[in-house]
């Protein structure tokens, strides 16, 4: 499956907000995919399941319709700007050259300059300009009249498309495109007019002298001349001043017309096109690199579910003889039972201190065989002393059993050192229960099992 597109990611984000940021349980059978693909599949399934299609696409449709409307508006504005520069005097059609240049090129250049400056100085407000506040207001308006169920889809769509750099480059692209429409429709209108009507070119100014306009024209003309366009000379410019008598020279007319068209293309359309291209490229790059914030708990939760780190566990070799449910009632901590004097004290894996207080301490099989001999020869009771905190396992049980010639007359003493009474040395309730269970299995009566401090052990030993 191919990588999800930007639109797919937007949809994934919309689904997230529609779900209220709660991933829920996802037993969708989406396996063996990477996380992106799995998310995409999941989003599609959910959209189908909840019939969200219309809900999710409506913001984009609204956006496209608004763009279309704005494009039409700007096209009309471009034509209006051109028409504003036209007037008639008698049978002559006049065109105000510098007025037209100002409305078509002047504001355009100013906004490009601001945009470039904004990019260089990284001022988001300047880059996106006043357009930046439009989606925000739009969103507010929409949020007000759309019902609550639809708001998350709108919110996610808006956040994905318009937040951060993505929003900056998107608005830049839109703004350049609208200016292009404006200039393009103006240019088209001029071409149509020039094709079917004969215009006389005039200009007028209350404050500025002819020298200023000569300098301006020459300045603009320099680049145009590179393309082989012939430019009105100073005389023609002076002669074109309105009120000074209209220049009806067809060469001058042609020169003026080409100058106008050339200036609009070279100083208006081309820079816009470049800016639009650049902004669009950056936008596409942002879109390509766009990923939802996978660090959000929602996505982390989903990752655990959709791309698990481990398989479900399964028992491959079951317990053939499940042990019966063990009684959980614990006995109270029993004190050391009274033991007849002369008992044989056999230690089992005792620590050094306690080991010194018993007849023999079993640490290995040699100790065990010796202890077994002692036990068999013992005339009095046998007391097994173990560390209470140690674990009574089957090995312990087998070895202790081999020491008890007469279980009924034997004792099981759980040594619990008082000195250095750390949590670790203490016999836990659980462990005590384990030992009682062992004693029961060894047939040592419960009243002959008990806890024993080191001092008590020392007393017994003497």
């Amino acid at each position, binding site marked *: 499956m191919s990588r999800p597109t930007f639109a797919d990611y937007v949809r994934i984000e919309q689904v997230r907000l529609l779900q209220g940021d709660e991933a829920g349980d996802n037993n969708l059978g989406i396996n063996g995919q990477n996380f992106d693909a799995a998310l995409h599949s999941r989003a599609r399934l959910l959209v189908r399941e909840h019939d969200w299609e219309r809900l999710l696409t409506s913001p984009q449709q609204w956006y496209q319709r608004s763009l279309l409307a704005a494009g039409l508006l700007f096209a009309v504005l471009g034509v209006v700007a051109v028409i504003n520069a036209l007037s008639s005097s008698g049978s002559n059609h006049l065109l105000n050259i510098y007025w037209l240049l100002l409305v078509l090129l002047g504001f355009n250049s100013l906004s490009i300059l601001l945009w470039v400056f904004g990019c260089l100085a990284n001022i988001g407000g300047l880059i996106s300009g006043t357009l930046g506040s439009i989606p925000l207001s739009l969103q507010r308006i929409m949020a007000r009249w759309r019902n609550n169920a639809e708001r998350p889809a709108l919110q996610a769509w808006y956040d994905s498309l318009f937040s951060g750099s993505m929003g900056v480059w998107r608005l830049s692209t839109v703004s350049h495109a609208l200016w292009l429409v404006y200039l393009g429709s103006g240019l088209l209108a001029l071409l149509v007019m020039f094709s079917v009507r004969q215009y006389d070119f005039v200009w007028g100014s209350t404050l500025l002298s002819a020298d200023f306009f000569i300098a301006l024209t020459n300045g603009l003309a320099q680049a145009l001349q590179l393309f082989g366009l012939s430019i009105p000379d100073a005389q023609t410019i002076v002669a074109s001043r309105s009120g000074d008598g209209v220049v009806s020279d067809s060469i001058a007319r042609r020169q003026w017309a080409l100058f106008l068209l050339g200036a609009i293309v070279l100083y208006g359309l081309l820079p816009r096109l470049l800016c639009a291209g650049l902004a669009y490229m950056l936008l596409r790059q942002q879109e390509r690199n766009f990923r939802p914030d996978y660090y959000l708990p929602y996505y982390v939760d989903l990752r655990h579910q959709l791309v698990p780190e481990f398989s479900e566990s399964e028992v491959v070799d079951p317990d053939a003889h499940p042990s019966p449910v063990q009684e959980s009632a614990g006995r109270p901590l029993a004190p050391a039972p009274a033991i007849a004097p002369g008992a044989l004290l056999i230690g089992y*894996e005792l620590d050094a201190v306690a080991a010194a207080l018993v007849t023999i301490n079993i640490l290995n099989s040699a100790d065990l065989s010796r202890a077994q001999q002692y036990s068999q020869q013992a005339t009095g009771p046998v007391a097994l002393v173990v560390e209470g905190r140690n674990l009574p396992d089957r*090995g312990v049980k087998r070895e202790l059993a081999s020491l008890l010639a007469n279980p009924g007359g034997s004792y099981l003493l759980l040594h619990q050192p008082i000195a250095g009474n750390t949590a670790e040395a203490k016999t836990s309730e659980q462990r005590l229960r384990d030992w009682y269970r062992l004693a029961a299995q060894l047939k040592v009566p419960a009243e002959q099992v008990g806890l024993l401090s080191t001092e008590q052990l020392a007393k017994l030993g003497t």
Partner: protein
Amino acid sequence: MNTSHAAPIQVAVVGHTNTGKTSLVRTLLRSKSFGAVNDSAGTTRHVERASLLADGKHVLSLYDTPGLEDSLGLLAALSSNERKLSVTRLQSFIDEAGKHPGFDQEIKVLRQAGQSDLLLYVVDVRARRLEKFSAELDILASLGKPIIPVFNFIVGQTDQLRQWRDMTVSHNLHAALEFDTVAFDFEAEKRLYQKMQSVLESRYDDLQRLIDHRSSEWQALCEAAVQRSQTLLIDAAILQVDVVDGGREAALSSLRGKARQLEQRGLHDLLKLFAFSRQDIELAQLPVSDGQWELDLFSVNTLRMFGLDARSSALKGAAAGAGLDLMVGGISLGAAAAAGALLGAGVSTFRRYGKRITSALSSQDSICLDDTSMSLLLLRQLDLLRRLTHRGHAAQGQMELSTMDDKQQHPLPEQWPSILAGLRTGLANRSASNSQFQSAKAELFAVLTKTSFSTS
């Protein structure tokens, strides 16, 4: 070097009873749901498998086995009639399982170990080195499979650890590993796979894939956690409540309520990230109950606990429970924003700052969290992150934890005041784009990462 195999690497986790075999598997899976863990003999009485996946593919299958309980008895049974311990002897013993009901569990272990590529022999280093452990190693070694001893419960057991190392070396096991299933450390997990690489040369590439995958997942997890903490701290730093008609008390309690709510939500999300439950936090001795911080963010005791002196005069307000500043001054429009406002992008800029400017003009107060509360919030987040990243999923009891009232242990990062000041430039607008706010955000991320995940 070698090609990638299709079949997952089979690893049997073996060892004496109650040494933490199931815990090891849980910690590696980062799941609390695997098997049963109990401080008792014979908790696991079956062989259970779970596989580690990398990009959806099974790479490594872990087999949790019952504990070996009577190795000396088993050794005696195996070597009876003058027969020597060998693979064939073990095999015939396993085949005659019915004849040895007393060694039911041991046979399960041997059967699984014999079918595996590698054995992890888990050792509770707190135990004494007795003959029975040697017997276990002798029996396992006779299967002819590579064995890696894994030393568990190593915190504070330097001497014991050394002695266990000596013992395993005497059994010719040199590639041993320290891996505490309770006090988790990702580096140790990585070393485990590396040791496996060293003894399973033919699966080197598969294991490398696993290492790379696990590392990037862990990295992502830590980053997600840091990001969540960062979000919380930013949200708290820019939290602002208007004082309406002099109702300062009402504003105060509203602000506190909001701050607590932010912290609780953050806690909930972090626990979820690390797949821990509320119970874990209680066990980790964090002052949390029912998923809620037990110690109120605004109590004097909490301040003390984190080493913040509530008695100093500067913080008297905080100690009295005021804990707040007036935020009328300290609003910098910033040269760039001002230029933008002047140059015609004014609508959005004014919307951003206008409310604050008008409130300053009409002398309407807003309150926000003061520095002490913010510092406390930071320390609590750091503490939480540290604990979460170092807690194994096997942890049952209480961890060896540093006490929270040790001022030296968790000092405030020295960049904190400047970070906080930077964050405050974004008051009431968390997507503020001014450079001061952005750099404070980045610095906060760095501080959280460094302080929480530096290996102690």
